[in-house]
């Protein structure tokens, strides 16, 4: 094994650069080093001005998503040796505006998130004194997968629809809406319907499935979208046949 590898890192500082450029850095190639270790090596030893986000280094905080050799990935879970001999291209997540170097602006997602009411909506309020609501392991299993999203944005970066139409509400937001819709404790499905059946909601998705492939946490956002399309179709039919005009 060679003892070093080149990271070809995107640099962009809006105050001085007209457009992003690539810069090469040689970092040690160690068996248990991930791409993020390489970036930290650069920052600590070679160039303190490199900017990127990270925190947990255990694949759970969702901070460190970047394009590695053209694919969206968590850099704390991507080993250098798997991309040897290099050079390894490390670029900011695709489909997002770049703030600087490897940092992208995900404000759009944070703004969309509340629109799907990602919280338990109840017709009644249960007092704490009544204790926990019952939920069987099977009921938990119904939505559990969709609750595993770490908001890493890899799916948005992989999604060709989002790339063309930034108004598309996107895979993770829809998966999260489904997470609550399918929760036996929730009464909010009707409230979420409008946003989801809007043209920028589930119907925006042309079922490419790239989001599910990109997802590091097996959330299967594509599955959530497909499943909701069925629900949405049913609800639309219902609203035509029921005299009340829908839910």
């Amino acid at each position: 094994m060679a003892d070093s590898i080149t990271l070809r890192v995107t640099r962009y500082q809006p105050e001085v650069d007209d457009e992003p450029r690539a810069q090469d850095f040689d970092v040690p190639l160690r068996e248990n080093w991930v791409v993020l270790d390489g970036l930290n090596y650069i920052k600590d030893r070679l160039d303190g001005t490199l900017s990127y986000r990270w925190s947990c280094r255990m694949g759970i905080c969702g901070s460190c998503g970047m394009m590695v050799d053209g694919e969206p990935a968590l850099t704390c879970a991507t080993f250098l040796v798997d991309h040897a001999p290099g050079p390894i291209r490390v670029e900011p997540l695709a489909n997002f505006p770049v703030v600087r170097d490897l940092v992208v602006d995900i404000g759009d997602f944070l703004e969309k998130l509340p629109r799907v009411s990602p919280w338990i909506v109840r017709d009644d309020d249960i007092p704490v004194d009544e204790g926990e609501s019952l939920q069987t392991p099977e009921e938990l299993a119904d939505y559990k997968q969709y609750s595993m999203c770490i908001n890493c944005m890899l799916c948005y970066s992989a999604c060709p629809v989002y790339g063309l139409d930034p108004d598309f509400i996107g895979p993770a937001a829809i998966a999260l809406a489904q997470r609550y819709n399918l929760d036996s404790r929730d009464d909010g499905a009707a409230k979420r319907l409008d946003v989801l059946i809007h043209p920028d909601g589930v119907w925006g998705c042309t079922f490419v499935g790239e989001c599910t492939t990109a997802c590091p946490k097996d959330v299967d956002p594509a599955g959530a979208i497909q499943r909701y399309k069925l629900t949405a179709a049913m609800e639309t039919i219902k609203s035509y046949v029921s005299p009340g005009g829908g839910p």
Partner: protein
Amino acid sequence: MTTAHDVVLVGGGGAGLRAAIAIAEARPELDVAVVSKVYPMRSHTVSAEGGAAGVIGADDSLDEHIYDTISGSDWLADQDAVEMFVEEAPRELIRLEHWGCPWSREPDGRVAVRPFGGMKKQRTWFAADKTGFHMLHTLFQTSLKYGTIHRYDEWFVTKLVVDDGVIQGVVAIELSTGRIETMTAKAVILATGGCGRVFPFTTNAAIKTGDGMSLAYRAGAPLKDMEFVQYHPTGLPFTGILITEAARAEGGWLLNKDGYRYLQDYDLGKPEPTPVLRSMELGPRDRLSQAFVHEVEEGRAIDTPYGPAVHLDLRHLGAKVIDAKIPFVRELCLKYQNVDPAAELVQVRPVVHYMMGGVHTDIHGATPVKGLYAAGEVACVSINGANRLGSNSLPELLVFGARAGRAAAEYAAGASGPTRAGLRQADDEHRRIWRELRGREPNGNERIADLREQMQHTMEGGAGIYRTGDSLTKAVDTLHEFQGRRDQARIEDHSHTFNTELLTFLELSAMLDVAETIVYSALRREESRGAHQRTDYSARDNDRFLAHSLAHRASDGSCQIRYLPVTITRWPVGERVYGR
């Protein structure tokens, strides 16, 4: 620029978000700002794995949880605080259930509980082994409901403004633009989490740099019990990734290089094939980490490229149990260590994990600075004393987050706005940060990373699992020297856009403050208790040290230690007995 809020929360982790919701619910007319250096759902609470303790089983009682916590703390916890905490924890966990937290369940639909280290009954609620992740996302998503909560995501607080002992607000910098802003507030709550990064090998995320502790210390609020640093017995060598205690609670064994369950030699009980509560692998963390050091000294540890380790054996549990109960453990071992715990032994070693000490508060989260509150790992109430029990921290975030929120809301509703002197102080801080951003003249030649690494090794050498007066005195001197070298730090990045080099400098400054309080407090405590073990004073000394240490920052910048008696109510000081 100046903006005004009624309450400013520094920190958007479990404690911060719980506090924000408590304020929004108690006083919807108040304007709340949540300022966080990372997006709230990136906060470190997300990494917590094992679970959250709260009495719920029919065979359990509040008194037993209280006793476990107090004996676990080696009698340094305040008993009134522990009583209140244990009483309120189940209600908080239920509330979180109502907000949607996907707690693991029994077949009949009730919440499931699991055993945990140092706990005599099964009372640890869990969401598989991503408890903190689910708690944090539930809190974050629920917080989106409230229109009165304003978020400042990716803003870094650099100073607490205090005039005449009363809080005035904070100064913060927006990372994406470099904008510096004064946020005035009638009350401020610190919820900035712990400081594991002052040590080289830690389970703590990169953001855990003790900022809030340093902010409070510099604002005149003392730091309590800083000598008590928890090592978790099972971290993966090299990465420091935590293998949760739940792995042992589900039946995992710790073996030395001879395949022997060595804990039986350390007065922790007899080896049984299935887990026994408060015994062997389910003993408290301080005792397990200390046993490890002895095994290393006796030459019975396994040598790895990253230092000595022992083995965690989960093989007998089988893939099915592992996947059902601790799937994240398997995922982490496979992805980061390339071992499959269902088939192979996992190398583990003690790793710095949690800070028992923190900003001194009362049971309402109030600090001695009027209008300044603290909750979560940054605070020290104290319910953890000399050693925290696993799974007591997550409920602590909820109980004390909510309490601090309510208390701060009450206070803010009756308090007045900022003083002129306060605003002037804030202006000075703007100028200081501005200077660092534009480039200091002359720039220094110390590399930030070098200073940080040297500080971390000083801490490990001087204030690790075992300490002596000599090692601590040396650490005190070295750290003192680092304070000077910090001013020589080199900042090459002068950009206003996402300047992470400035950030690492500010974080290093905070860590140096925190490190200093740890070594001073440890040097002055001439006894061994819980996580603080002195080889030169190996016994517990209740006559002199049944007391909290309070580290104050004197006007000349030096660290001064005073003591505060522990509150004892119904549980007289006794011996900590495990496995018998």
